């Protein structure tokens, strides 16, 4: 079994590792680095539970090999707060955008990506933007509300800056 040395920054911390080429990024995060905040929900990259940001853009970490992230930067749910919760985290809590919470890390990171692209989305744009993330508990209604609330909060935050 040959391994490949990689250096990946995860949630601001740089990790040097030797990984098998076949190691999925999500397994590298969970089993290799012990950063288990990112869960796995499927094996066909449909559910989006494992969504993380790779250099700021949402990706499904079950469809990325760890070796492909050498030299790059990953943000997981565990790196979303910066002293205080990210507005998206606050909004998911305030609007009851989660129940069991399993889809929540991926859903929030997809929402962060969505709001980066489109700071003031319509309800339809939010629903389309979250098409790659499945939730079985909420019927999505309060997730949509949470993203709307986060958009407002982030714009206010941006205006205040």
């Amino acid at each position, binding site marked *: 079994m040959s391994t490949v040395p990689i250096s990946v920054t995860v949630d601001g911390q740089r990790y040097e590792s030797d990984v098998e080429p076949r190691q999925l990024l999500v397994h590298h995060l*969970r089993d290799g680095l012990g950063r288990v905040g990112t869960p796995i*929900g499927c094996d066909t990259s449909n559910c989006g539970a494992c969504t993380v940001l790779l250099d700021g853009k949402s990706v499904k970490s079950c469809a990325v090999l760890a070796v492909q992230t050498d030299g790059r930067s990953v943000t997981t749910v565990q790196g979303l707060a910066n002293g205080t919760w990210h507005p998206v985290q606050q909004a998911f809590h305030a609007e*009851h955008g989660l129940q069991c*919470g*399993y889809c929540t890390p991926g859903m929030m990171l997809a929402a962060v990506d969505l709001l980066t692209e489109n700071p003031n989305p319509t309800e339809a744009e939010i629903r389309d933007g979250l*098409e790659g993330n499945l939730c079985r*508990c909420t019927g*999505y209604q309060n997730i949509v509300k949470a993203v709307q609330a986060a958009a407002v909060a982030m714009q206010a935050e941006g205006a205040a800056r």
Partner: protein
Amino acid sequence: MTETLESSKLVGQPLKRKEDARLVTGETNWTDNIQLPGMLYMAILRSPMAHAKIDRIDTSRAAQMPGVVAVYTGADLAGLGIPCVWPVTDDMVGPTFPVLAADEVRFAGDAVAAVVADSRYRASDALEGIEVDYSPLPAVIDMTAALADGADLVHSDKGTNKCYYWEFTGGDYAAAKAKAEAEGGRVFHRQYIQQRLIPNAMEPRAVVCAPMAATGEITLWSSTQIPHVVRVLLALVTGIPEQKIRVIAPDVGGGFGSKLDLYREEVIAAVVAGKLGRPVKWTESRSEGYQATIHGRDQIQDIEVACTADGTLLGLKVDLVANMGAYLQIITPGIPLLGAFMYNSIYKFEALHFGCTGVFTTTTPTDAYRGAGRPEATYAIERLMDDLAAELGVDPLELRAKNWIKHEEFPFTTIAGLEYDSGNYEAATAKATELLDYSGLRAEQARRRESGDPVQLGIGVSTFTEMCGLAPSRILSALKYVAGGWESSTVRVLPTGKVEVVTGTSPHGQGHVTAWSQIAADALGVPFEDIEVIYGDTKMSPHGMDTYGSRSLVVGGIAVLHAAERVVEKARRIAAHQLECDPADLDFEGGVFKVRGTPGAEKAIQAVAFEAFTAHDLPEGVEPTLTADSTLDPNQFSYPHGTHLCAVEVDTETGAVVIRKYVAVDDIGNVVNPMIVEGQVHGGIAQGIAQALYEEAVYDADGNLVTGTMVDYLVPSAADLPHFTTDRTVTPATTNELGVKGVGEAGTIASTPAVVNAVVDALRHLGVHDMRMPCSPQTVWRTIQTAAGASSNSNGAQS
């Protein structure tokens, strides 16, 4: 504080959830997150065939592969099986369900061997090192064919594919039918198909088992809804003494009934970890779970009503054929029977006949999926009411109103023998029709029909009730269920005045920590933040019947209330002793005992707790510590109800269905936390819509699961679902102190018929009378084509 007691009550407030902080920051404790020193990883080899004899298994190559510690086959684990705890009839056929198939595999995905290795990657690799020779046997997929004489058998030693026939009657159906016929009424029959569904909790199942050789103890973490039941069953199955088994359901990512079971992997992990003396983890992949975790629904429903010429219902006859799958999981046979009492729904009948035939097929076992029997019942009766209304030429709401139990008629004993304590179907329906703009949409529908618009509008109605609060133990006994339906709680006020609420419910998304805190805070008069809720661990919460069947609040929440009230009563005696008054002279307000008529003579419950801890000055006969238990066995079920209305647009050219508006008015009695309730309704509706429009587990004739991954089994996303308009009416339950009824399954039960009724309603003028679920574009388009062909044929015959 000048607030009145009433306005300071937390029950009824939309408090934000205590659960969220860890979940939104990723500090979670899913079973697969657990890492233990020396832990090994298990992988299961599964049958690629639906039905075959196992001629030979050779594990020698796998055993030599890197990192492999052990390989087990059925022969190694002989005698270990999954029990069925619901033998619904005395002569039910209950085949042995081995944890690993030894001689014969009976469904695609049947477990054949277990590999244990030092990493999950190497365990996966080793599966490919196991050689199995199979001799194919006939797949048994079609339920009707399976029941025919001479059918190929799933269990050849049983001589039949029939698992059981179960019957239930109220009144005399033959007489009701004769009456209808004599009076120029109708006997109206329909057959509906409940397709097979895959529950799809977002967290796949996972198990970790840690043995402790010196003491013979095991700790088993499992993504389960029922840690307490798993503990009892594990003890019975493995012979490990019950007191040596600790089962923990850590964070559990949804269940919907699919984790209401004892699963083979739990037993295998427990036994294998013990044999190896090392912790063992197994985590299901999604596509593996599609075969290894139970499926839901899958029934053929024949339903017949007898009614008078004006549509007054007289008799109801239901014949089900219900797919068990290849084996019985713990409550597989009972699931369709949970619907037996619900087919009559909110309507008054003179007679009911219900019969259900359970049948084995070479498919994944079925078991509870959100609603479990009740969505099926509601679907059949509500589809039928819409169809009957069309047949009679009356508005579907009018037909329902003619037949439902009037609000002044409660309590009402139904033909199924259940006493509905309360309800107000008129109020919920009135609110729903207004929210939908029922008459406005009917007018638009008429215009679109008139103009031949390729996009047609349909309105679907679903007025429903269900039975929640599983369950009075005496009723479970009558149904031959081998356990009770009680729930347990302990409330402790700690020396520093903080509170621990122990509950036997096992939440996995429902928000019990928040809701139980609200109940206990009100009862004890302590701050919401001071309460910790302990659950999901048989060592910390030793008694419980866990979470399913919309039971947790109605049974477990009331147990919390009772335990808290007992704490207050104990505290009252201590406070009275120390304030030197009679306990009856104390008022308890906002957490403070006050001597009536003596301002300033008071003691807070926190102070009482400290006195109970020091035990320096307790009244005679009062034991130290401020704690109390309650184990509550409910007397009655509770009966949430509601009216859901759905408007759809159907593109008749492509068959595409778009939900234009969805209105849900639910009456679940009083609510503890309206925010949580709304979330439950949203999610329930989404799952019901998913059955109506998107989801179906499909087997081909050879028994391969064609919808084997999420690519083909279509779980809807945010982009596929509409905004829901939700509202409530409040008719408190009279059977519990809080007046609550339960809400976990209501949305799922109500929504499926609302949607399908809407689709059929949009197309009825084109000759469409039914639509098989899911109403996929192709199915809708083809049904329209068939109806058009039928009407042009009949036109041709006339000319």
